[in-house]
């Protein structure tokens, strides 16, 4: 099954497999947790998996070069993702605090006021 991967020399596929594991763990966290902050942590895991993919592809598959030819698109994208994740965490926590003030719980199953 793992015939395509060499274990001694770390290549692109090692990082991709690890990022897939992180993504799946984040997805399972989002699906399983009923605490809203736990769901937020799952989202952070998914974003980290995407970042690992971006940086690994930038390192291994971007056509190297020196000076002005050096490509850094993956790293720049990863920086933007980190900034957006921080902003998203701040707004989400503010919303959760409001929710907690109104419902006295952080259980997402209780947020059913808009159900038809």
């Amino acid at each position, binding site marked *: *099954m*793992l015939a395509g991967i060499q274990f*001694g*020399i*770390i290549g*692109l596929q*090692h*990082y991709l*497999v*690890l990022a*897939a*594991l*992180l993504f799946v*763990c*984040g*997805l399972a*966290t989002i*699906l*399983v*947790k*009923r*605490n809203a*902050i736990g769901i*937020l*942590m*799952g989202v*952070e*895991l998914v974003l*980290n998996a995407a*970042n*690992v993919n971006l*940086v690994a592809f*930038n*390192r*291994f*598959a971007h056509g190297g*070069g*020196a000076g002005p030819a*050096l490509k*850094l698109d993956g*790293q*720049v994208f990863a*920086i933007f993702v*980190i*900034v*957006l994740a*921080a*902003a998203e*965490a*701040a*707004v989400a*926590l*503010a*919303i959760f*605090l*409001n929710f*907690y*003030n109104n419902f006295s719980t*952080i259980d997402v*199953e209780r947020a059913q006021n808009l159900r038809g």
Partner: protein
Amino acid sequence: MSFSVLAQSDISDAANTATAVLFYLFAIMAGGSAICVAVSRNIVRTAVALLFTLTGVAGLYFLLNAEFLAAVQLVVYAGGTLILIIFGVMLTSKSPFSRFEAKLGEVVIAMSLACVLLFALVMGIVRTTFATDEFPTGNYPIDRLGQVLLGDYLVPFEVVSVLLLAVMIGAAYLAKGRRREGEEGAARSGSLSRQAREWS
């Protein structure tokens, strides 16, 4: 000539071994604590496991020669976002160990979906041949990163700064809440009435 070639290959072998050892160390750290995040029932333990995941990913960035990104990951994620999340945990639970159990059916569905997706992703990655470089670039100088960030990506950079301003105002407005004014007014009137009682 042959001696120098041999020495070079020895050095590159040693470097490969060191890289492999460090990679597996950081990968086990990140992946294992990611699994802990998914299966842990205690929200505080989940937060601590997330801290180890973020640190492990920062180590992987070091291995990928993205030193600036690793520093940003440690400072912004492990130092900022995670502290924010832990403050949220402390502010939104009467006891920090309160737990809400998901239903067993939900857990089974989520875990089976995750296993199937992981299997599909790993098989896809292993069976694909990526057009990777034979000799990846050695390092990424930070001055080049700054030039790219303020050159090619100037417009996204400025848009992100405006977004951060909007997020700061929005989060402050949302977290302040409307009930606070009433509480402040009640507290002020209470202290006023107490003062009036003392004076009388």
